[in-house]
């Protein structure tokens, strides 16, 4: 699995550099967006890198290679799902690093806050988005599902901002929810958030795997 993920990153050396630039750009321009700034930047770059890898797979017709190697399809699909978190972690690290540099150089720039909520938001948004779009890629291939994935991406962003607005309008509800979580221990809080996300992710994995198994190369 390590090698499959490593390959996804290696094939996009130029893209990684571009991703770094993008993050710098986002860090400078999204500063007014609050927590959402972090989530959005991470989601955008994750989208860029994950699907870049899929595009490379498709362009090189390397699905044929992967299926010819003695490696289970379950592993190939699992590697893709796990790679999302690797990329999210990498992106978060890069953002943190960029902000450190900005602070260190004392540049007169505001940056969006780097908080745990923001990071959690990034993970959640990426999980949701990939859970929805990966089955499409595994069934139809990257090229054919490009348009739909693009639309999904903007829906996710739109949906997230709608969600955030809704939260802000329903301050009362937020208060109740906050009280609810305050009474829970950290573990329970984490579990309540992580579990549905994991469930969706795993369902998506099962769907992707069954598509990939039936696919002809």
């Amino acid at each position, binding site marked *: 699995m390590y*090698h499959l993920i490593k390959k996804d990153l*290696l094939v996009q050396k130029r893209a990684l550099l571009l991703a770094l630039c993008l993050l710098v750009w986002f860090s400078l321009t999204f500063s007014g967006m609050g927590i959402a700034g972090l989530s959005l930047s991470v989601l955008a770059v994750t989208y860029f890198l994950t699907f870049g890898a899929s595009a490379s797979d498709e362009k*090189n017709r390397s699905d044929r290679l992967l299926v*010819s190697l*003695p*490696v289970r399809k379950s592993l190939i699909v699992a590697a893709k799902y796990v790679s999302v978190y690797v990329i999210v972690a990498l992106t978060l690290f890069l953002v943190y690093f960029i902000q450190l540099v900005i602070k260190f150089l004392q540049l007169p720039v505001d940056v969006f806050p780097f908080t745990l909520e923001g990071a959690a938001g990034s993970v959640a948004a990426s999980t949701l988005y990939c859970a929805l779009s990966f089955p499409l890629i595994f069934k139809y291939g990257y090229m054919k599902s490009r348009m739909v994935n693009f639309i999904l991406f903007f829906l996710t962003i739109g949906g997230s901002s709608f969600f955030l607005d809704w939260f802000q309008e329903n301050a009362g509800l937020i208060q109740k929810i906050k009280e609810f979580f305050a009474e829970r221990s950290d573990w329970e809080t984490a579990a309540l958030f992580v579990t549905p996300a994991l469930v969706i992710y795993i369902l998506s994995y099962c769907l992707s795997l069954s598509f990939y198994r039936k696919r*002809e*190369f």
Partner: protein
Amino acid sequence: MDKIVEITGLSKHYKGFSLKNISFSLERGYIMGFIGPNGAGKSTTIKLMMNLVKKDGGQIKLFGLDHEKDEIAVKERIGFVYDENCFYDELTVEEMKNFIRPFYRRWDEAAFKRYVREFGLPLNKQIKRLSKGMKMKFALAAALSHHAELLIMDEPTSGLDPLVRNELLDILRTLMEDGNTSVFFSTHITSDLDKIADYITLIHEGEILLSTTKEELLEEYCIVKGGKNLDLSACRELFIGLEESRYGIAGLARNKGDVIKRLGGSAVIERPTLEDILLFFTSRSDSHVSSH
């Protein structure tokens, strides 16, 4: 009898094309040439063997194992060389090798290094910068570096110059020397197989037309050349195909012994090449008889 490949009644249906009742087998230590015109079903057969596409019927046994149930065990022992590059263009030769390597339990790094030296593979060059011949050699090096017992090659020499094709054949000859490896070589360039193949299987429009040793094939069949007035009434039924030109006729016939008896000195009788076999069996209207 150590049957490395055993295919029975294989079938696969597409909208405009079907593979019907494909059956043949290959023992350890021999090379089988899989010949047929473009679109005959060669690549489809290989994809079915590698489980890249699902079969509709029949059975494929590799190393005595079912190719689907024991897929991983089977693929461990297969080295493959495809005609189109399926490697990652952006990676270097070394990076690509390092990607493939962990998947094979029996990877032999020393063997790979030997091939790198022998082929002159530039380890730090990106795959996209390699010539077509070099790409094939890399695929071959990778395929031969994990003690594979079966080498499956799908038109590996298409688009390559005669020099590289000859190098490939030399490598295969050395490979065959210990009798441990079998090679399944699909191509429409029959001259590659004229010398090296032990067995020939001919496929056309999704069906196997013949599958036998090259020896038997080239002895059973013959090219008959004669003047325009050559009387073939006595042996018409022995002819697979006939071609008339302005100055005479030429054809492929089977049962060489019978043909010689019936035609005797009135015609020239020659050994066919695999190209002749391919052309006459697949009834191309512009077929010609190749001469040595």
